[in-house]
């Protein structure tokens, strides 16, 4: 009889705790959404031009490059990886897409070739990881090494000079808009996000990506070819880098060997602020979109209020730390508190 009472009591505690945890998890789960709301409200208060249609269109155009990169980064993060070479890869693709066209190549062929180059860099990363059976910490090192390689290839290609576009068809991608309303960069970002979301949620490849990120060993024992899934993720990030390079160069009409260095950090901050877990297995394109919007609006507000871009670096760094901590909190509380409380009750 006593035993039954104890069990009842324990179950009661557990039920209570689960409700508390559900509340905490609910508030933690949508923390990035609240952040977005707060930033939008803050923006409307400090600047009166913030909510004009012109400014919103500007924000959307500005986030397109970072958004495309963040899409690629999301795939890598979900598979339990990290891609530091994304920025250098984008720089290389920027140089190549202009260089090919200035060398007299057809525009579409040049874009296709550059996308292949971007995917090749991803493939090289993934192949090294397959060879050394890399953990997350090894992936940091490997992509850091390939960053150096890709950067010096870009530097060798450009010889340190700036390259400029002189093809108006190509700049139309960045400057023009569909029916005069939707700019092409925004359209490309939207289409890419829809495709990525479909792959993640509706295909077996997407499910495998989540499993691989969740637990590498368990997925291996479930018969998933983990290295292949990871290769796919890195090729996707290379694809995103090349696409971002095309959009970027067609907007800015110029490139050099280090024009996109540091963009991998922005993409990573965007994905993690949105709620993609470091180490993989959690989050989808909605999170990435929220993260990219937060970053874009934050930068926009700072530009409107005249805060120097250097302060943005500091704020990005601090924000990344906070969001990593929130990401850990999201995973921690439930199991720990239930177990601890049951232990206390169990002693009685």
């Amino acid at each position, binding site marked *: 009889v006593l035993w039954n009472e104890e069990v009842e009591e324990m179950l009661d505690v557990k039920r209570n705790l689960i409700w508390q945890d559900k509340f905490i998890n609910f508030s933690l789960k949508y923390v990035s959404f609240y952040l977005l709301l707060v930033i939008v409200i803050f923006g409307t208060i400090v600047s009166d031009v913030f909510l004009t249609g012109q400014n919103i269109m500007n924000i959307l155009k500005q986030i397109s490059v970072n958004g495309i990169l963040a899409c690629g980064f999301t795939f890598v993060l979900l598979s339990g990886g990290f891609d530091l070479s994304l920025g250098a890869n984008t720089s290389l693709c920027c140089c190549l897409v202009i260089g090919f066209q200035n060398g007299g190549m057809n525009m579409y062929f040049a874009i296709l070739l550059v996308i292949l180059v971007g995917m090749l860099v991803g493939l090289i990363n993934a192949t090294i990881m397959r060879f050394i059976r890399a953990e997350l910490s090894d992936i940091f090192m490997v992509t850091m090494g390939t960053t150096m390689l890709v950067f010096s290839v870009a530097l060798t290609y450009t010889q340190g000079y700036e390259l400029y576009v002189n093809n108006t068809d190509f700049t139309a991608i960045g400057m023009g808009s569909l029916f005069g309303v939707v700019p092409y960069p925004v359209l490309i970002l939207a289409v890419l996000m829809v495709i990525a979301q479909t792959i993640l949620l509706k295909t077996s490849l997407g499910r495998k990506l989540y499993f691989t990120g969740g637990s590498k060993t368990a997925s291996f024992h479930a018969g998933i070819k983990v290295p292949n899934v990871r290769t796919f993720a890195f090729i996707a990030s290379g694809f995103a880098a090349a696409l971002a390079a095309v959009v970027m160069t067609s907007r800015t009409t110029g490139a050099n060997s280090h024009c996109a260095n540091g963009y991998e950090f922005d993409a990573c901050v965007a994905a993690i602020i949105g709620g993609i877990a470091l180490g993989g297995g959690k989050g989808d394109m909605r999170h990435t979109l929220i993260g990219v919007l937060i970053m874009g609006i934050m930068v926009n507000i700072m530009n409107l209020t005249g805060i120097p871009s*250097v302060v943005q670096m500091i704020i990005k760094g601090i924000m990344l730390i906070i969001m990593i901590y929130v990401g850990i909190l999201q995973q921690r509380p439930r199991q720990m508190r239930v177990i601890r409380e049951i232990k206390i009750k169990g002693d009685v």
Partner: protein
Amino acid sequence: MYKMQQAILIKRIVSKNVVILVSVAAFIVFSFIKPLFISATNLNGLLIEAPSYGLAAIGLTFCLLCNQLDISMGAVISLSTVLFALLSPVLGFAFALLIVFAAAILVGMINGLLVGLAKLDAFMISLSTMTAVRGVALLITDTKPVPCHDPIIVAIGNMNIGFVPVVFIFFLAMVFVAEFVLKYTMFGRNIYAVGAAPAAAAATGIKTRFTIFIVFVINAFFSALSGFVMLTRMQSGSPILASDAALSIISMVVIGGTALNGGRGGALRTLSGIIIMGLIFNIMSMMNIYVNIQNLIKGAIVLGVVVMDRYAANKNKKV
């Protein structure tokens, strides 16, 4: 029988000190190929170059032995150079130095608290602090380099004993202090234990979290020393200094034979890594190799070292 034992002993000594042997061999071969290589000026250049990233590499050795990858060294180096260059005319040498080290240790403490106590990922945290600290360095200098004409700095930079610069002797002293701390004190042994098997170390009563915290503080301290040595050489502080520091320093430590996942290595091994990397780049500059090809080779070295280290460690894993 005796000969066999001797052969095994020689084999073991060779395999343990392969990096040192290779650097000695490279040194001898190149002094025959290029007589200029062993001129006093070049050797002085080699020795003056070694401590600048070398001190930070000693600090990183502590971190890597504890299985924590810190990449914020470059930012701390540049912050300490600009802080000293800005403060020394106002506050004087000693007080400026104090503030520089206090700032560096503060960064190390932030890293250490977040990684050691909150158990966040070391790489990501140091990536964030790196960005934030470099932002601070750019902010306080208004993104411009700052000259530093402090007489003591200039004097230290020009001080030589024979052809050996005095900063190199200081660097060697720091290496031996680090090696002594790592090998012959309880704290040093704890670092190895925490790096190799954190759960076992915690079970034997070692304060693993505190050890990780201290390791980050030590790394930041050595990075500040490194920045100070670079300041004596260049006599100016720059907020964009040492942007390739993480890669160079990690390759120095790992090529010396310190494992990336902790528990194996030491300060003397790092010293051999620093010397061989210095030799490689000195030789490449002597052979008139372009700087971007040098970067390519640097990246390839990092990749090669990481692949060798990790392939051997993960050979029996399934995925």
